[in-house]
């Protein structure tokens, strides 16, 4: 591991990063940019973001703290933090390859073979190889452990049959991290699962785009029909699929593998909602003169500030003594539900204009708020619904018994 940098080194680096993002960041390419990696809908958007990630990587501001021998920058993780801060400051577009860089990459760096690291890491950082995730199935959304996609060993291959759904970037991806069932007689549902680094561009794998409630695309359903993959694709050994899948979640906290940097989801700038409210009119007066709207907006400000400060408090053990897992486990629930409520609330500001949608010239901010509201459900449903999140908080932070 590289030595901890001095304050002066970090300051120099921060200035370089700041200058680079100032010069290179394109915020308005002339079409609407996705706010998250789950919303990449058009070729134009995909090409732009793939190009952007490559540029950032080549400039050294992505994967700066991943090992040099596999394509990373080999630097101390503080440098990456500084670079990510510069990206945020300049409101840079998202990094595209979320599943690769956030999930598969750390897993491979942690537990993969030398050959896998050599093969996968660098093209994943440059966004040349896009990765997707195959966990959810049409019949098994919240109950991931019950995944039924079948992987049957046949000589040196596995033969795959079944279907995965909600695959972000599934039609663009070269690889999928795949949770499949290799043993239907295992003592419990988890023990029958195995984890694969699965190639997507092979015979027997097809994808079908899913039109979202927004009217846009971004997810696919992936169908496996006698798709044959090499047994080398198995990762972590047969029967260890569930623990591999759970491990990918641990890396988000960055404890074992240094975070790759950047962000895959653009945080909603809530101050824009305040601005929108301030610029809206009701009964001929500023909207925020209306006591009901004023009170609601204030409550949301309290919520926003709490969640922002929670991110700092999470790293303060002295304020986390009673239930150390409380804040980390509730974060997804609280944040995604707040964003859903806020974006819905933003429609209430718009009066008659709340009726317009993306594509109409009369729509406020080109329909950004409507689209954000409808898309907000991707986060309250995806990655474990809010209802499942409440079970997780109840069972793992508050010690309540499982729901059966």
């Amino acid at each position, binding site marked *: 591991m590289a030595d901890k940098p001095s304050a002066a080194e970090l300051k120099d680096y921060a200035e370089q990063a700041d200058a680079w993002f100032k010069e290179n960041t394109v915020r308005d390419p002339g079409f609407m940019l996705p706010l998250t990696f789950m919303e990449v809908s058009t070729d134009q958007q995909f090409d732009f973001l793939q190009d952007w990630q490559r540029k950032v990587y080549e400039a050294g501001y992505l994967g700066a703290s991943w090992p040099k021998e596999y394509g990373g920058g080999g630097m101390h993780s503080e440098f990456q933090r500084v670079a990510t801060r510069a990206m945020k400051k300049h409101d840079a577009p998202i990094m595209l390859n979320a599943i690769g860089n956030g999930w598969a990459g750390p897993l491979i760096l942690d537990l993969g073979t030398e050959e896998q690291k050599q093969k996968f890491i660098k093209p994943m950082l440059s966004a040349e190889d896009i990765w997707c995730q195959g966990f959810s199935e049409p019949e098994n959304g919240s109950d991931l452990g019950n995944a039924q996609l079948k992987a049957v060993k046949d000589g040196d291959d596995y033969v795959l049959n079944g279907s995965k759904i909600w695959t972000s970037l599934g039609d663009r991806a070269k690889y999928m991290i795949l949770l499949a069932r290799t043993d239907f007689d295992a003592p419990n549902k988890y023990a029958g699962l195995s984890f694969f680094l699965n190639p997507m561009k092979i015979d027997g794998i097809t994808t079908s785009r899913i039109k979202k409630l927004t009217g846009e695309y971004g997810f696919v359903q992936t169908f496996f029909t006698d798709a044959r993959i090499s047994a080398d694709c198995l990762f972590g050994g047969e029967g260890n699929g569930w623990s591999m899948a759970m491990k990918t979640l641990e890396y988000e906290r960055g404890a074992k593998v240094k975070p790759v940097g950047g962000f895959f989801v653009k945080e909603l700038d809530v101050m824009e909602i305040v601005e929108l409210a301030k610029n809206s009119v009701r009964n001929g007066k500023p909207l925020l003169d209306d006591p009901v709207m004023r009170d609601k907006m204030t409550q949301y400000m309290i919520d926003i500030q709490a969640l922002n400060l929670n991110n700092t408090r999470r790293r303060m053990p002295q304020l986390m003594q009673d239930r150390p897992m409380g804040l980390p486990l509730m974060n997804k629930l609280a944040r995604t539900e707040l964003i859903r409520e806020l974006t819905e609330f933003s429609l209430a500001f718009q009066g008659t204009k709340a009726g317009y949608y993306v594509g109409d010239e009369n729509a406020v901010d080109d329909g950004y708020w409507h689209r954000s509201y409808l898309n907000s459900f991707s986060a309250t449903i995806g990655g474990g619904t809010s209802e499942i999140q409440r079970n997780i908080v*109840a069972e793992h932070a508050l010690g309540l018994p499982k729901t059966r």
Partner: protein
Amino acid sequence: MDNLGTIGTTEEQIELMDVATNFCRDKSPVDKVRALIDDDLGYDPGIWREIGELGWLAIAIPEAHGGVGLSMAEVVPIAEQMGRNLMSNPFGSTTLAAQALLAGGSEAEQAEWLPKIAEGAAATLALREANGDWDLSNIDATGFESGGTVTLSGKKQLVLWANSAELIIVSIKIDGEVRFALVERSALSDNALRRETVIDETARSYEVTLDGVTVSADALFDESRTRETLEKIELAAGLIHAAEMTGGAQSVIDYTLEYLKTRKQFGKIIGSYQALKHPTVNNYVEYEKARTHLYSAAHSWGEQGRGEVAVRMAAAQSHSSYSTAADRAIQFHGGFGFTHDCDAQLHRRKAILSGALIGDAAYQRSKLANLLFD
């Protein structure tokens, strides 16, 4: 919005948190809390003496006046743990009186009273009146100044721990302007105090009749400092009550969880039902938000502008989360929840009194809105 603060702690704060966590838990078990409900004084004088000896009343008093020289930030963990254990005593009112003295008292007034408070003398504030308004300057009690003597008249309500306080700081109007007068408890006849029945049975509150009470003109705060004194009192009260309510919210959630983990109905532990589980998680999330705001408010205390926003956010969030958590605690305890024996009502009542004293969540938000949007 540059009036939003950050969060941080001091070493002293965390040390005090550890000490207060153990002290309040050990000295204030709930059977003792309940026994004190029927006690006239309302607290254990031995424990009050210990609190004085621990130096807790001296924390936010400058060293020059016999204090420890820290700030309200370090008072917060103590008030939090008191609230968590329903430990009721004049700690909060005394701390607020000291803050009022620091904001508005003359050098002589500070030199006389702050060392006494630092050593353990109880004190309180008499601010509220019959109009029920949370606006501290909307008052009718008056002082008539003549020949170096001020004659007071009017009634003050919700004067916490007046019976125990050696010093009562009273807000009055002199010539139409809000002023503060230092009234010694010994200068009041017993008839001047009427014990009020307040919803929180662990608290002691009095109506104080000022008619005919006289104080020396030296016992007034400087009129040029009225405004900052009002602001300081309002914020210090918001912070202390936010701390107590945050501790209380934690406690009532823990209390409810215990029940959800042990009570069985239809052959199942009731905590396994999502109808109870999910709202409990929601209440827990709101509590954690309150605690985050509380330590942000403690950290931002004293920062111009940011301090007020942070304190009001903490007060609003703690009042709403404490109220909701306690309300649901009653419901989730079923039939037992409807009884006086269930501790949920202690918390529900305490949250109502706290809101009444400092301004409830909606009031705090209305004040916040002015700071945030105007």
